[in-house]
């Protein structure tokens, strides 16, 4: 799976979870910028990404994420590690 596919998966999950069909996940987007993206939905968001991409985030990795760009980068790295 290439990085564009991974980004698309993440975007689709976010649009469904936060009920915003036109949501655009820019790299500097944070939870504060999206209505409904609270701590509980953040957990749901991460787990849905894990299930869709077949990867697993560590709790400390999740804690260090600052914006969507870092989330995408980390997800892509894990997907690449899986395929190697």
């Amino acid at each position: 799976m290439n990085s564009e596919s991974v980004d698309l998966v993440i975007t689709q999950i976010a649009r469904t979870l936060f009920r915003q069909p036109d949501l655009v996940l820019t790299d500097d987007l944070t939870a504060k910028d999206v209505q409904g993206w609270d701590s509980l939905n953040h957990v749901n968001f991460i787990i849905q990404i894990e299930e869709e991409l077949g990867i697993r985030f560590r709790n400390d990795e999740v804690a260090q994420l600052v914006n969507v760009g870092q989330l995408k980068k980390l997800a892509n790295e894990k997907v690449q590690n899986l395929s190697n």
Partner: protein
Amino acid sequence: MQSKNGFVSAYRFAVLNLLALWLVFGSTVAVTSLGTSFAVWAGLCGIQKTKSSSYSKWAPFFGTLLIVIVLMFFIFYKKHFDAVVLGEINPSETSGIGSMFQIVSTISFSYVTIRIFDLIRGVTWGQEKLINPVALSGYLAPFHMLIAGPISSYHNYVKMDLIKQQSPTVEHILRCANTITTGLLFKVVFAQSILIFRFGVDNTFEVLNFTDACLLFLYLYFDFGGYSLVALGVGRLLGVPTPINFDKPFLSKSVTEFWGRWHVSLGAFVKNNIYWPIQFWIARRVKSPKLVESLSLASMCASFSAVAIWHRLTPRFFIWGVATSVVMLLEKYVQDWIMSRSIPTREFISKIGIFFGPVYTLTLIVLTIWYLSFELANI
């Protein structure tokens, strides 16, 4: 490598920090912070060696054991500390372990405990490297965050050594000076004015009505917020990671949002170390989203109970923690209902929420301040 303003690494800051502690707070504080650092470092050395050995599977057990040891020490320390603050124990008459508790109270051990937990988690379950005990003392007991935080993360502290250091610019120094002076204005002028004119110089915090509770709330904001701004300005001047502690809490449209804007650094610690670990554990095992949401009450209760007893080890604070969790869960259900509406409806609710949200939130928060006011003296 990313460049930023600042001129100290973790080790150099730690040495400067020990000197500052000695000069400002006295030799006992400096020696206690260094001694605490060595003790924690020794325990974590063992855990690191276990991680890299054939017994690596035992590392989480030893990490948990170390947390339990620190937690037990903290609970007994807290009981002693609260008794001293509430006048039940005369500190000059303590001896033995009571004297030890008195000594660690000089380094604001409540805040040091939180940093120790973050450190243990990062080294045991995360990928953080363990720095030497002298450098570690700069993280555990930083002079500019010694009295009442903010609570920096270990992860950000060790990153100091990875970032290219540059000398501070004039603009940066002026910005830091502005932050410091704003903090002093808040604490020395605004907070002290409220204190003197309503509550008196002996800090009785006698809250007789809603107006008194509002004034106490304002006092807490200016006092704590002002101190936090001074710490922030000093930290930024030195290039030491120092988080913000207050992010315009009066704009909060819900209690949930409020606790993300008030004492931000403590909220971040609780979220990363208590709420998310429990909630991830639940969400990975329970498939029903509705049930996961309802069970989030457990993680919220655990989080706010921890915050409550960290402030005061009393039933009143514990009740406040549980009640706050229930309110936040109810707000979550309301938010779900709003999110299920059409986008125009959501936008309309969002617009009226800009005014009514803060009114609702601040009313509730002031009422909780009123409820806790009896035990807020010298918190």
